């Protein structure tokens, strides 16, 4: 059974390799999750606690609801912030993502159908995003401080929209390219104007792609760290920044609390990711893949 034997061997090999990959990927996430439920005496044991019998919700209570411990005054100010930071992150992410996708879809439509941006410009756009944000951070700080935009929601929104536009344009464009021109030609012959065609014919067809792009960019804006760190001080602290401040203040390694905070910050993204995972493959071609 030479052929079936070969096939079995391959399957076994693949199973083995994927198993290792699964562990490498999954273990850190698993650890983060269980640590968030560990009581404090299990945070530093050796050998480590891989499965806690005494799991508790205390960490979550402390971090997210602010109850249960008596911190020092300094710790107190930082440790009550997560919920506020959550609100800021939500506002910032939702607003900037909506704007980015809205503008991006418009531009993508123009590029896909009418090539309002040449191929070269489109790539330049993509590369815009590739410039290390740190390089942009310095000029922005000065500029914003002059304009009184430092530590404001508006300031951050503008920057986030700019940095995510390349992705939103490229991804939406690849979804648009899947729709044949004949659709619009048919609508046009039947008398529909440009805007109506976009709204009634094109948009419903790319809806799932747009949703996927939206969620992906939401992930980007939610996890952005550097610009949020630099362009905010007190008023618009986002979750990632808050997390690092938390780190800085609680140098005593409060692993449980950290984990609870980390889970809170990451969970929304994981949920989102699960919803859009099928679309990611379609959106990530950047012109290099022919269908």
């Amino acid at each position, binding site marked *: *059974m*030479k*052929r*079936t034997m070969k096939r079995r061997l391959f399957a076994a090999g693949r199973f083995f390799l994927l198993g290792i990959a699964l562990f490498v990927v999954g273990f850190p996430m698993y650890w983060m999750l269980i640590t968030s439920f560990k009581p404090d005496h299990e945070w530093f044991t050796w050998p480590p606690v891989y499965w806690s019998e005494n799991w508790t919700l205390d960490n979550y209570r402390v971090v997210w609801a602010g109850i249960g411990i008596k911190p020092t005054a300094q710790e107190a100010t930082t440790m009550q912030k997560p919920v506020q930071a959550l609100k800021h992150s939500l506002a910032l992410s939702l607003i900037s993502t909506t704007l980015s996708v809205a503008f991006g879809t418009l531009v993508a439509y123009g590029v896909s159908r009418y090539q309002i941006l040449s191929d070269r410009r489109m790539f330049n756009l993509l590369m815009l995003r590739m410039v290390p944000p740190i390089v942009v951070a310095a000029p922005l700080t000065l500029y914003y401080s002059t304009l009184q935009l430092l530590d404001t929601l508006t300031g951050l929104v503008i920057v986030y929209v700019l940095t995510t536009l390349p992705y939103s344009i490229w991804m939406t464009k690849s979804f648009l390219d899947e729709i044949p021109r004949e659709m619009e030609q048919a609508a046009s012959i039947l008398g529909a104007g440009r805007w109506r065609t976009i709204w009634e014919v094109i948009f419903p067809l790319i809806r799932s792609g747009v949703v996927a792009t939206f969620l992906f960019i939401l992930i980007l804006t939610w996890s952005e760290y550097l610009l949020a760190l630099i362009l905010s001080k007190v008023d618009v602290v986002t979750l990632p920044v808050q997390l690092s401040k938390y780190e800085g203040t609680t140098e005593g390694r409060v692993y449980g609390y950290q984990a609870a905070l980390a889970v809170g910050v990451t969970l929304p993204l994981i949920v989102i990711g699960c919803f859009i995972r099928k679309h990611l493959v379609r959106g990530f071609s950047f012109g290099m893949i022919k269908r």
Partner: protein
Amino acid sequence: MARIEMKELRKVYGRGIEAVKRLDLDIEEGEFLVLVGPSGCGKTTTLRMIAGFEEPTAGEIYIDGRLVNDLEPGQRNLGMVFQNLALFPHKTVAENIEFGPRMKKVPPEVRGRRVREAAEMVRITHLLGKLPGQCSGGEAQRVALARTLVTEPGAFLLDEPLSSLDAKLRREMRAEIDRLHQRLKKTFIYVTHDQEEAMTLADRIVVMRNGLIEQVGSPMQIYGDPVSHFVADFFGSPSMNLIGGQVSHEGGRARFEAPGLAVELPPALARAAAGETTLGIRPEHLEISGNGGVFRGEVRLVEPLGKDTLLYFDRGGDQPLIAVVEGTRSYREGDVLNLSVDPGRLYLFGWDGKRVR
């Protein structure tokens, strides 16, 4: 030379979809065998099982007496032309043709010669340096052919190779394939859904339906002696007139009656069971007669095809009655005509679809 035998072949897919229910077939050396049938009948699955791209759920395939179920496609000494050609788009025509011999480690000088010979056989020597994307549809076809020819396999498998071509090109390529078969005298197994291709190319036709073989025979047998309603309907252009009606017996004679049409059945069909039956008459066998005949009606539509003209008659059923006359005769819509038919040209099909003999 390859003689291919398939015993009790069966293929079931995941959700219980039986693509091939049971297939027993022996393919002779050097014959041009066509597997034909509607989409989903199992013909492509069968071809792919012969090639080795699908593993049979049950049954055996023998090539030259050797059981090949367990062999990889590359080890079966077969060549295949795919429906969408599958030319390597990033390699030149020459590199495409050269690929097979290279894989079998044929030394470069011999390779070069064989590539040129194959290219000459299908007349594409001028294209050797081009990319497939730069060739026209017909040219690409030939490249695909050359690519398999050069490996000198024992048998050739062709999976609907002409379906993406326009009508004229299709005829040209058909002739080309026929020519190749005459010259090489190797086994050709050809899959198509086009009955005309089957009729013109085949030494033998295998009609498939729902995963089973419906009928096997030469083109003339299939055409003239269909074993069922399905086969009769499938072959022939325009297709056979199939008229539903009743058979009754009267005084030792059998008679077929349908709305607008009545015919006395010849002695050969006199033993047909009474009751619901389908009568079949090929359009080319209906003749315009002066009077009498089996049918009288008004011409609803005239379709001139050049050599022939098709006349459509309303029969009161849902299908029109079609007759073929010589193109030189001119009839007009509205003409009322009598149609007669030679009783030897009548086909009778029972309620189960099978032919009554």
